[in-house]
């Protein structure tokens, strides 16, 4: 580490990712460098560690520190109805299209974070009257964030942006309908989440575990470098039925991946793709 700037060198990051791979069997070596470096810097500051070596030491000696480390490393920022126009397209085109040929719909939220995206999905389906036809799987690499998603309790002060998004989405009712306020928390109506199963899953090293009609992997791959994006896209592709839909974040793109031609762009603005080749 350079002394005057506290700047972390690439070699140190390599050492860290190699250590983590060997000790915990997680692979962070292909996370996008600029943000990975910032996250590690942040973790050093948070735990008052001086160097990356000290961080490695701590990971090596404190058994339960690794989970905490993963939580701090990953970026969990999310919102209900994030990108409201996407949710409108989903309601008006994508879901009706899937339901044309099916009586059921299976959905995977890959990188679900604290669950706001799942709740949005459940509300969309509920307002369409098909929530009971849905099977939703929600996964994330970070165990503690999944626990949060399961709880479905959010600070009231976070609800303002959710309300704004919902009204831009032009939902049927008011978001208020879907939660009760207890103290300083909004507690989500549990019946919305009955068909959701949650599990820890690593997109980088985890295996393909099922097939879906619709996969949402939004704002997750932006933390990966291009090599890894490419690799993960293969997994997502395998996890989709033919003619199933993949959604990525509004500022992401598939075009530079080697299997891009196995998808067509359904909506470029909202980054919705359809698998057309196995």
């Amino acid at each position, binding site marked *: 580490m350079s002394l*005057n*700037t506290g*700047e972390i060198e*690439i070699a140190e990051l390599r050492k860290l990712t190699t250590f983590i791979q060997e000790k915990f069997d997680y692979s962070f070596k292909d996370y*996008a*460098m*600029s*943000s990975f*470096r*910032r*996250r590690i810097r942040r973790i050093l500051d948070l735990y008052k560690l001086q160097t990356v070596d000290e961080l490695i030491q701590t990971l090596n000696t404190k058994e339960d520190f690794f989970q905490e480390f993963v939580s701090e490393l990953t*970026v969990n*920022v999310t919102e209900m109805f994030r990108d409201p126009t996407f949710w409108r397209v989903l309601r008006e085109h994508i879901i009706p299209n899937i339901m044309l040929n099916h009586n059921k719909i299976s959905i995977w939220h890959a990188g679900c974070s604290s669950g706001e995206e799942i709740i949005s999905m459940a509300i969309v389906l509920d307002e369409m009257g098909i929530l009971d036809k849905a099977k939703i799987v929600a996964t994330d690499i970070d165990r503690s964030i999944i626990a949060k998603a399961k709880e479905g309790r959010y600070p009231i002060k976070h609800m303002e942006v959710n309300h*704004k998004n919902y009204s*831009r989405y032009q939902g049927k009712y008011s978001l208020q309908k879907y939660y009760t306020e207890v103290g300083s928390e909004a507690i989500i109506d549990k019946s919305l989440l009955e068909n959701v199963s949650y599990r820890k899953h690593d997109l980088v090293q985890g295996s393909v575990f099922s097939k879906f009609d619709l996969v949402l992997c939004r*704002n997750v*791959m*932006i*933390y990966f*470098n*291009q090599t890894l*994006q490419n690799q993960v896209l293969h997994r997502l592709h395998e996890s989709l039925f033919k003619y199933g839909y993949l959604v990525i*974040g*509004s*500022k*992401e*793109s598939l075009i*530079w991946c080697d299997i891009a031609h196995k998808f067509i762009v359904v909506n470029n603005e909202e980054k919705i793709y359809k698998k057309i080749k196995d």
Partner: protein
Amino acid sequence: MIKQTHLTDKYKAVVIGGSAGSFQPIVQILSSIPRQFPLPIFLCLHRLKHVRHGFVEALSIKSQKEIAEPLDKESIKKGVVYLAPANYHMAVELGNSISLNTEELINNSRPAIDITFESAAYVYRDKLIGVLLSGANKDGAIGMQRIKQRKGLTIIQNIEESMINAMPMAAKNIVDIDYELKVDEIISFLLKLNELYK
């Protein structure tokens, strides 16, 4: 005004940060530099988080430059102006590409100037020019410090000229800034550089 040592063709990129009061200066700068300007320009301006459209168009009206909000991992091209999209931080990645991310707000902002500046300083080192314009908070000060530490060139908008001077002041308070320039002077510096690359 500008030292001879700073008039070279070694630079590889320009980063510009601005907040309240920076829109006019930005438009002036973008409308004065030629389409073929030899360096990529990374623009990080504080903007409304939910207004996804219109900013590029507004900036493009008077400019001949190609102005674009990049997608994540887009490759960097010379001469293009990259505008940080609403609600995303924009960082420069090693290997000539741009990363976007939704990390926490920094200085209450996303996009945050500090992130764009720091990441660019890391990648371009002494081959970076950082320009910090008018604004009402202190975003960009740490970024300017990092540019300076990496031996890049640091320029703030003239304090008197800045409509709101808190942002350039904050940088000036912690960094030994190379130049404090009026917008006209910033433009003429960039135009001189443009000549040097021919």
